[in-house]
């Protein structure tokens, strides 16, 4: 049925499939960015799209992120549905003025007359041995900008479903792709793609009764691993995968914490001014009388992203997560 990614098993291939299916379903969907055409993207996520849909619909742009997003704004004004690739997290920064001053607020500025259905794909996060400027967790910047949806998948199935939803959305979506999960595989069947996931719903990845790990994107598999390891300590940890940072699913998160009475937020982004502070505050506001301990954060350090040979000390791992769980005032129960 298609020349593109006939056997998607990795997250990267599911993303390719999502782009392909969105382009096939809607001629207004245009993919654009650096190296997305002939090369298929540095992570090969746009592999084959230019060949199948032509270079007018999968376009190698000049190397200028503000120009890429700025022209995408004009294309969206004219009724197209651009899907923009920012090659790496830190390379998206030149586009911030367009993102913040225009993309996020055009609907608002124009009283709803000029919505901008733009998807901005950003490979983000560390753990791939990238040199400087290739491993940032930039989600807090996007979360702090009203008017953007901020979405990040942690599974192959969600990568497909959430990207389809992002492209279908009439609002701008910052779609953060955990680059160290690009080559992760699961049992997703490409011949029967997942239904399009609604944006804004978290999911319980692993049910548990002792405490809740609230996480997203690249930290989801780490938390699942930590939850398995915690069984040896007698802890039965629940893992909530947020999937969408904006809108935030207070309901699912609060319901989980009310059940378990304890919570740890886990992410690669730094803790000061990072997503964890907002999440901890929201959980505390909603679950105060159910909490047995303060909500803790396990995050990257508040340092510029370290060089690759040191990054393992920076990234939240199983041990740091279990140490935090151990500090959740278990003695109070005895």
């Amino acid at each position, binding site marked *: 049925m298609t020349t593109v990614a006939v056997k998607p098993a990795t997250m990267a291939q599911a993303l390719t499939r999502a782009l392909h299916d969105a382009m096939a379903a809607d001629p207004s969907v245009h993919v654009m960015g650096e190296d997305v055409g002939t090369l298929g993207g540095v992570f090969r996520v746009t592999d084959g799209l230019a060949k199948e849909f032509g270079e007018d619909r999968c376009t190698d742009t000049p190397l200028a992120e*503000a*120009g890429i997003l700025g*022209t995408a704004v004009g*294309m969206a004004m*004219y009724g197209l549905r651009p899907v923009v690739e920012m090659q790496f997290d830190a390379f998206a920064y030149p586009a911030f003025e367009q993102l913040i001053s225009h993309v996020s607020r055009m*609907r608002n500025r124009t*009283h709803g007359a*000029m*919505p901008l259905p733009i998807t901005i794909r950003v490979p983000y996060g560390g753990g791939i041995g990238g040199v400087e400027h290739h491993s940032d967790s930039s989600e807090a910047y996007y979360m702090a900008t009203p008017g953007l949806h901020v979405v990040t998948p942690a599974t192959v199935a969600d990568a497909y479903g959430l990207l389809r939803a992002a492209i279908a959305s009439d609002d701008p979506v910052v779609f953060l792709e955990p680059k160290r999960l690009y080559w992760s595989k699961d049992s997703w069947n490409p011949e029967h793609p997942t239904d399009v996931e609604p944006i804004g719903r978290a999911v319980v990845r692993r049910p548990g009764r002792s405490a809740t790990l609230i996480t997203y994107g690249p930290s989801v598999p780490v938390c699942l691993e930590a939850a398995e390891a915690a069984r040896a300590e007698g802890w039965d940890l629940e893992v909530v995968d947020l999937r969408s940072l904006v809108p935030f699913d207070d309901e699912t998160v609060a319901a989980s914490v009310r059940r378990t009475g304890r919570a740890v937020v886990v992410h690669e982004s730094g803790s000061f001014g990072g997503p964890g502070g907002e999440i901890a505050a929201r959980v505390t506001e909603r679950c105060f009388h159910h909490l047995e301990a303060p909500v803790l954060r396990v995050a990257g350090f508040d340092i510029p992203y370290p060089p690759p040979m040191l990054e393992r000390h920076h990234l939240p791992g199983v041990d740091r997560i279990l140490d935090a769980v151990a500090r959740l005032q278990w003695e109070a129960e005895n």
Partner: protein
Amino acid sequence: MTVMEQRGAYRPSPPPAWQPRTDPAPLLPDAEPYRVLGTEGAAKCDPALLRRLYAELVRGRRYNAQATALTKQGRLAVYPSSTGQEACEVAAALALQEQDWLFPSYRDTLAAVARGVDPVQALTLLRGDWHTGYDPYAHRVAPLCTPLATQLPHAVGLAHAARLKGDDVVALAMVGDGGTSEGDFHEALNFAAVWQAPVVFLVQNNGFAISVPLAKQTAAPSLAHKAVGYGMPGRLVDGNDAAAVHEVLTDAVRHAREGGGPTLVEAITYRVDAHTNADDATRYRGDAEVDAWRAHDPIALLEHELTERGLLDEDGMRHARDAAETMAADLRERMNQDPVLDPADLFAHVYAEPTPQLREQQALLEAELAAEQGGEHR
């Protein structure tokens, strides 16, 4: 075996052939700004067009005066005047066809008005009751853009999208001399040229970016020369000569429409008023300079041409002034009415559907408003 190892066998070879990507000569601007009024070329102008330009200039000058007066009465938060630049503002609007798009900056409300936007709606941003007061799709006028040059890539993207769809649409984007220093100016021109997008960039070089003169902004021979670096033609025009600006812009629009790609037009003009009513221009320029430009006023230039050639008499001038007064009176009256504000608008258009978090915040505001009203009744 490396080259070093096969010493003797290696024959130096010339680099692969190089040639310029495009001939730069036709892209270069003229040595002098193009002029029509007061030259032999004026005789070739359509009298009806010149009269139309005159009426629009008179109306535009009156609009600028009225908007400035409204700031003094507290009816506008701020007004960046285009007094002295009316020829550029009006010609930009008149050079376009109905299906085309205009991308104005914050100083270009007059261009929006000349394209048909209701003056009250054009001034909504500056009154402060909302950011954009008009539906951009109604007259194909993009929202007034405050961050400098950021609307230029939008114009490129829109024109590119229209061309991909096979539609006959040209975008004209307006920017000032200060804006040409911004990165988005560069990126927009580069994208436009690479894509051969049907766009016209109009730089109004009015001498100042707030207080900073052009000499501190660029070392280029002229702003029009910048076009050559992108591979598009640059045109230099007297920005106070309405007939010349209209002709150059119309040619550039036609060139874009016929598939010739983008053009950069630099119009030499002068910001007669301060940057805004909040600025004090005496801190950075002298009266002599302003007076020299007042002597090269766009309305006076055109009026002189028209009267000299018997195309305009006292009656015609009075008619133009009366029409401008009618517009100003209507604007004054409607701007003196307090705008109707709805706090619910704060939340209505952030997303297609408000997030749960925004619903909570809206409920909080509604409770505050209810308490305020209750307090009034106590």
